[in-house]
């Protein structure tokens, strides 16, 4: 049983529905630009506005990006169709959304979480986005009690892929991992910039709880979650709410609930007069989409190495743990190939990983500092010519200048690693100053080494190489 943070005996069951906007130049069914942040209603055409007589034509690049997503998620690409989902809402220009319904493009895939949990992907289908409503007056821009709304159709018709997971997620942390991993994949395959803050990635969670071994409970769909952090909080809140209801003898009603970031709760919307009846039917203005094997294989062959494989590779290269923070961060930034270059230039990949994680947050996947310069720095470090503290200072100068010879920079700063005999002296002084710590360390308490090293470094005014100090201490203990 895993720790899901819930009261004893309760299991959390979560399925995730993630919408991503595809990184195309134009809309899913027409040629107006797919561009975020433009003046309202400037990216519009007859199809986008649902003008009488306008007809949709499918964007080939959107299909390819959708296939990339499906293939990266281990899905099968199948012949598929588009349906009309009919409902009235002012930002839905045609009063129907064109979406893939019972025959989606990608089916039956999965995503492996970094911790090794497998989350099934039921489908990844294509659909069009709606326009954007902004509510004015009333209580501060909310739907309820507003005086009027203004509609911008720039986003209408933007291609989306909706990725629907199986209810395989068991903890809020897994949900966060799923979304993070999915985002990494989407960015890696070039399908989307997947920014939750800008709305190019949106996540709804179907949450239910049950006693271990029991039938699936009634689920609630949680919407309006705007960050990965909120997703975890919303799931945790909703699970506890459901358990409270069930433990006090109540029942869960299947409904859509909105997450409210300000009060940290989920809220039910006002009940509707009639249940939603979307009257789905096959879109007669579009034809079947059935990529042949040749097309599917062409897209598959062009897929880049995916984040999971890149993490494995980078871990092997650097000696770091595969699920470490450093590996995750560096792969997400796309800086793993840079570390490979450092290694190929004769550098120390392990030290390079540390520096890249710590100091390259502002750099993209192609850092300005030449790989050979960072390689030279890691060599100095490895050879004991610079301490970590000194190396950090040198790296700061190199990054500022966009390159440079680390040995020359170190020399100009008067950085010289202390001779081992000098360090031995500091070690003597340190052991004398911390007899208790030394005794504990000799008795096998590894933690005690920290206090010793700290004291010795202080005595050397930071000039001793921590690695050399550690080695001397180990040698003296006889381990």
């Amino acid at each position: 049983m895993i720790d899901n943070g819930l009261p004893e005996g309760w299991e959390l069951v979560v399925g995730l529905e993630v919408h991503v906007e595809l990184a195309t130049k134009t809309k899913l069914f027409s040629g107006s630009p797919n561009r975020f942040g433009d003046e309202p209603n400037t990216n519009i055409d007859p199809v986008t506005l649902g003008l009488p007589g306008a007809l949709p034509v499918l964007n080939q690049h959107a299909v390819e990006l959708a296939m990339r997503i499906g293939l990266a998620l281990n899905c099968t690409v199948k012949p598929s169709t588009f349906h009309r989902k009919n409902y009235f809402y002012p930002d839905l220009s045609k009063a129907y959304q064109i979406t893939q319904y019972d025959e989606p493009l990608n089916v039956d895939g999965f995503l492996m979480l970094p911790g090794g949990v497998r989350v099934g992907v039921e489908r990844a289908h294509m659909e069009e986005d709606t326009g954007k409503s902004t509510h004015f007056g009333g209580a501060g821009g909310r739907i309820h009690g507003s005086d009027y709304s203004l509609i911008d159709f720039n986003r209408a018709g933007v291609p989306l892929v909706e990725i629907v997971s199986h209810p395989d997620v068991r903890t809020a942390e897994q949900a966060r991992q799923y979304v993070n991993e999915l985002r990494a994949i989407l960015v890696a395959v070039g399908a989307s910039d997947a920014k939750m803050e800008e709305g190019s990635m949106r996540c709804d969670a179907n949450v239910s709880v049950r006693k271990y071994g029991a039938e699936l409970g009634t689920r609630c769909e949680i919407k309006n979650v705007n960050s990965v952090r909120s997703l975890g909080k919303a799931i945790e809140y909703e699970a506890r709410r459901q358990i409270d209801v069930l433990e006090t003898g109540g029942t869960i009603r299947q409904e859509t609930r909105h997450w409210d970031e300000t009060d940290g709760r989920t809220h039910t919307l006002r009940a509707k007069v009639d249940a939603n009846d979307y009257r789905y039917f096959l879109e007669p203005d579009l034809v079947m989409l059935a990529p042949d094997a040749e097309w599917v294989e062409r897209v598959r062959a062009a897929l880049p190495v995916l984040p999971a494989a890149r993490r494995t590779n980078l871990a092997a290269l650097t000696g770091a743990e595969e699920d470490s923070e450093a590996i995750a961060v560096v792969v997400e930034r796309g800086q793993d190939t840079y570390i490979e270059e450092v290694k190929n230039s004769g550098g120390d990949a392990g030290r390079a990983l540390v520096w890249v994680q710590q100091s390259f947050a502002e750099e993209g996947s192609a850092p300005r500092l030449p790989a050979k310069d960072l390689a030279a720095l890691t060599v100095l470090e490895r050879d004991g010519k610079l301490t970590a503290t000194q190396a950090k200072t040198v790296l700061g100068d190199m990054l500022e200048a966009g390159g440079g010879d680390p040995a020359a920079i170190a020399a100009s700063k008067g950085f010289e690693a202390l001779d081992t005999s000098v360090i031995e002296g500091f070690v003597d002084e340190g052991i004398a100053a911390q007899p208790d710590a030394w005794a504990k360390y000799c008795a096998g308490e590894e933690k005690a080494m920290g206090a010793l090293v700290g004291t010795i470094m202080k005595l050397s005014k930071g000039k001793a190489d921590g690695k050399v100090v550690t080695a001397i201490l180990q040698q003296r203990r006889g381990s």
Partner: protein
Amino acid sequence: MSNFTSATSIAQNVASGAQSAASVVEEHLQRISQREEEVHAFNLVTSTEARERAADLDARIARGENVGPLAGVPIALKDNMCTRGIPTTCSSKILEGWKPPYNATVVDKLFAAGAVFVGKTNLDEFAMGSSTENSAFGPTRNPLDTSRVPGGSSGGSAAAVAAGFAAVSLGSDTGGSIRQPAALCGVVGVKPTYGLVSRYGLVAFASSLDQIGPFSHSVADAALLTEIIAGYDPMDSTSIPKPAPSLVSVLGRGVEGMRIGRVADLPEGADADVLARLDAAFVALEKAGATIVDVKLPSLSYALTAYYLIAPAEASSNLARYDGVRYGNRVAANDMNTMYADTRAAGFGDEVKRRIMLGTYALSAGYYDAYYGKALKVRRLISDDFAAAYVNADVILTPTSPTVAFPFGAKTDDPLTMYLCDIFTIPTNLAGHPAMSVPFGTGQANMPVGVQILAPTLGEEAMFKVAAVLESAA
């Protein structure tokens, strides 16, 4: 044949300089000014634009330019085809005053061919009807007898040609809306194969059934117009990716050796005068060297049901966009749903509302399988019936309309009675096949009778060959 000059002759005369486009336009505008008040074929007569256009064409011809195969031909457009900057109403109050910001593909094609647009013609609101009595702007009258309907829904386009207001016109045909008014007004009307003519810019009624086609006085004009408006359009996903067929060139080839299908189990309902003309048509074709063969279409009698479930279902979705948000008229209200419901209640006429409700019901949860789903299967049966029949026949002949043009109000009490006007035309739309109506003599009250020629997918050549022979035998 009428006394009016054919589009083919006008184009030749104008292109050669024998006649100016301006004089052709004046001739037609004059007929409009004489009879339009009585006939009401148009929602809008674009006389200023037509005169400017004719002057421009004349100037270009004087400079030696080739202005296209429809040089100076006055043409009327059904008012459900988008014309940039010119009101397009679908004869509905909900769109009254709306000016599209773009042209339908057919409009661009006709313009490029040198045609002169004289106006937008009246129709049953959103093309829903068989008499043009459902127009929000008043009915069109049959130019041959103004106490009678012109048929519908393209009644205005049929009447405009019959009255000589335009040499040719375009209509749209979802269940017979070109062929039935053509028959009732004594002109030629063609519904091409689904996908042959682009629907881009045609305001949708039922997307899987709608098709644009021409009205004309002669079979040759109809062939010319069909050639010009046909052809692949990348803006319409259902457009057939093939070049437009060559039709004018096949007209003289006769029907020698062709197999003409007679439907042995033709649904009942046609008047005797209409059936008599159909018989005469078979005789004429046989005399011209064709063989008459019996075919069976056992599912044909279910076509009406399939059609009146499928077409309203698609329409209920297609017409949902008229919500008072982006264009058209709005009834103001304090909340969104009241605005929607009041706007649509005030903007749509009775028949449109009825079909929207029927279609919404047929698609709704719990009823989809019983109605819409079943209708799609019946559609397949009908299509399969035709496929079997066309093994033995090249074309099939039926009446176009069960009756000649009827008096106003004759079928307005019970919607079903009106729906039965389409029993012979609907099956082709379900199958997506081409069909056309050719005038073939007269029936009761000396009103014209049309004979309908049906052909398989992309069978326009055979259809036009037969039409040409019937025309000369009429």
